[in-house]
């Protein structure tokens, strides 16, 4: 299932083929990365890493083109990296530096004037929740703090696109929630486009609007999470206070098919538009005296959608 490309793309990849010796990591790969927060999903060895490497200009493709905000990653690598921030999966810091020195230095490397870089370093460190540790050496940081400082160094120069690689790696549940909040805040309130590569589908579901699924070096699926988790035929989930045979009969009499039943929970399906089906279900409840506790369009989880895509 491949959705049509959106009109405006933050990154565009056309017929990209990347080889490592005889091994082909990406084969005629094309994708339009939309604005907003995009999840990059795929099994191990699918080509996600190679895609990120290529977007950063680390890997030279055998053929094809890739652009980020109109700049070619092959011909204008430095320009592209000035607009992009990378938060790598691995621990990475500059030894012997305090948090603020490290982030300011990263800003200078990106092209910021020294004074601006220092001022901005204080801002992003504060934003990342490391305000009290700004003068501590980065090597003394805990895993969670190191994750945050990686995000701060990626953000310091105000990139238009952030590449986050396993951003919640090694974080405790609270730290993970904080990090996801931070990512969501960056992508939804600060006008920064984000690509999150993660194996944790719940993280993607919580932060991203769109996902790109890569399998065996090819684009397998792309679209908004809303669309991808939709179930064909648009069934509706109904939860009653108690199981109600009269309500069941009334529903069946209206031609609504009960697909599954689990105590007071029913999944029903009908050809009519969702609004009309909902109205019919409520009318049945009213006429039979059944008390409706919940009513919603049934969706599958992102995990189910992902497994379907991978198995396809």
């Amino acid at each position, binding site marked *: 299932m491949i959705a049509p490309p959106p009109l405006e793309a933050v990154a565009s990849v056309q017929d990209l083929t990347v080889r490592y010796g005889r091994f082909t990591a990406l084969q005629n790969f094309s994708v339009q990365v939309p604005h907003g927060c995009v999840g990059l999903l795929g099994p191990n060895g699918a080509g996600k890493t190679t895609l990120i490497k290529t977007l950063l200009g680390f890997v030279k493709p055998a053929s094809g083109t890739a652009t980020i905000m109109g700049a070619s990653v092959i011909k204008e690598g430095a*320009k592209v990296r000035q607009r992009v921030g990378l938060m790598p999966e691995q*621990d*990475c810091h500059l*030894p012997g530096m305090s948090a603020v020195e490290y982030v300011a230095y990263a800003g200078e*490397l990106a092209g910021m004037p020294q004074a601006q870089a220092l001022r901005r370093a204080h801002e992003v460190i504060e934003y990342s*929740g490391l*305000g009290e540790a700004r003068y501590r050496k980065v090597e003394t940081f805990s895993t969670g703090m190191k994750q945050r400082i990686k995000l701060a160094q990626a953000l*310091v120069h105000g990139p238009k696109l952030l590449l986050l*690689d396993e951003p919640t790696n090694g974080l405790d549940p609270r730290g993970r929630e904080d990090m996801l909040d931070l990512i969501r805040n960056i992508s939804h309130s*600060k006008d920064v486009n984000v690509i999150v590569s993660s194996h944790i589908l719940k993280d993607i579901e919580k932060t991203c609007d769109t996902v790109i699924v890569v399998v065996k070096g090819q684009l397998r699926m792309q679209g908004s999470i809303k669309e991808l988790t939709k179930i064909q035929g648009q069934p509706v989930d109904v939860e009653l206070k108690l199981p109600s045979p009269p309500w069941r009969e009334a529903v069946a009499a209206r031609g609504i098919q009960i697909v599954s039943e689990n105590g007071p929970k029913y999944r029903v399906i009908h050809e009519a538009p969702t609004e009309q089906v909902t109205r019919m279900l409520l009318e049945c409840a009213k006429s039979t005296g059944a008390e409706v506790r919940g009513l919603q369009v049934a969706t599958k989880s992102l995990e189910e959608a992902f497994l379907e895509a991978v198995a396809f």
Partner: protein
Amino acid sequence: MSSPIADLTYRSYDGPLNPPSARWWVITKMMTLKAFRNRFYWLFVALSGWYYLVILTVIFITELLAAQATEQLAGNGTAASQVADQIQFLDRLVWKLQYMHGFSYGQLIYMVIALLVGAGAVANDNRANALLVYLSKPCTRLDYVVGKFFGVWIPVFTAMAVPTTLFFLYGLLSYRNHGFTMYAWAYPAALGFMAMAATLHTSIMLGIGSLLKQGRIAGILYGTLYMITNIFTFMILIFFNISMGEARESARNAGQTFSAEAVKQHPALQTAFYSSIDGLNIGLAKAMLGVDGGNQFGLPITPGTFIPAPNGFVTFGMMAGISLIWLLIFWKRVRAVEVVN
């Protein structure tokens, strides 16, 4: 860390960004400032100039004594002779040789400074995955290599140049009457061979560092390489001295005067003597200054006690070649990095 997000008033940066070129200077500047802020660095810089300090002290005392003797013992024949000797000491000084000795006696300390500044420059980056930070910014491999190179080279060169410059300025102001200005050209020449020596130290240090992930191990390896080659040179010197002793003895037995030419009968020894990091540095210094050695601390020049200068072009070529090889190793080790395991 599980503290709440402290500040959500973040704004996107919309300030100026310099064009994505010449990022090497940012790296060099950071490393140089870091070295210059280290008080141990300046301690070693001061120590590296110990020869100049000693020779200037000797000259100062000699001048003082000569002045006192002239005033107090005017008309006394013995005192006049002492004064004459002291003045002769000053005139005996070959100023260009003092640059060579100042450089030569500081060698070990220059190596320590190279370790202090360069041992962790790349090795620690390897350990901390710092390349990911550098290469994900508009910073190329070339920027990284050049930036690191000059980040080590500038502090090492400064350590060599500062004592020499002070000696030069002091000499220029104080010893013009004793032939100092005649050898003023030796100062830029000294800066030249110091630049090359700093290049050699820096290249080897960075090359070794690029192969490792621990700055300390890189430092130990470089120190070991330096010491082993130096021990070899020292052994050659002992062998040379024995050989010269025999030559001197033969000359005496034959009723002849020992000639400095005898020294040049041992080209293999000469080559071997300069086959170390120190040897190359000192060899180039000798070749560029056009000196063979001797006259350290103002002592009279005695033939056969020092090994003549090597061929300057060959020495320069050797140093350039070795530096290039280690820089190539460094360059090869800076690879496009893994983004995801």
